[in-house]
């Protein structure tokens, strides 16, 4: 169940700094834990998160994160970005075992 939740405004005034909160369902298995049978549960982590902002002219990475086993399960990442022009924000998570997920959100800038 790799459900993701993006919480951010849908509209903003040009130049506003908008707050973006992201959540994604993922166990962030550290690779240090032993399971019920005593064997180590294999590492399974989200390693990277990026936010790209496509504002009609170009697409730019406005934020990035590199995650390690110390990040709690179901990772929560909150950051900010400047509302430059109306467009689409693209959020991408990637990690172990070929994990990759992308979510998008529209921002109307007036």
């Amino acid at each position, binding site marked *: 169940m790799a459900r993701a939740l993006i919480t951010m405004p849908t509209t903003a005034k040009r130049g506003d700094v908008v707050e973006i909160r992201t959540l994604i369902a993922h166990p962030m298995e550290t690779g240090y834990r032993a399971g019920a049978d005593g064997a180590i549960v294999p590492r399974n982590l989200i390693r990277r998160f990026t936010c790209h902002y496509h504002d009609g002219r170009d697409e*730019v990475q406005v934020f990035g994160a590199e995650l390690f086993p110390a990040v709690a399960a179901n990772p929560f990442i909150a*950051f900010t970005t400047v509302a*430059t022009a109306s467009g689409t924000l693209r959020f991408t998570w990637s990690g172990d075992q070929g994990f990759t997920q992308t979510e998008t959100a529209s921002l109307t800038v007036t």
Partner: protein
Amino acid sequence: MMKRRDVIGAAAGLVGLVWVRPATADADELAAAVAAFAGGVPVRAGRVEFDIAPLVENGNTVPVTVRVPSPMTEADHVTAIAIFNQRNPQRDVANFTLGPRAGRATVSTRIRLAGSQQLVAVAKMNDGSCWSKTVDVLVTLAACVEP
């Protein structure tokens, strides 16, 4: 005769020992991790705000916010923020890449703490300087240690 309270206390203490490492080795490793991130630039204490509860009731999911007051203009901005720990199995926690498009240098996440320890947040500026904030966090154990 062992009282019930003693049994629970002993059990809780045993679990707490699993991932805690000796303090001296960790302090060196923590300093090394910070230095590596800073790329040889001296790291100065200051400018970085590190929000975390001083006393944490569950080390599995600890909210943290790192904030660096900065105009975040092309001329003057934070390029990266990193968090390091002292006593988890690995020093790194998370690295964040920012820039003028961020508007503010504020990042929040939730982290795991394997016991009471020191944490360091480091910020790199576009002028090459590095700043840090160190915090000490007390992590209490969950009362009922069960699956």
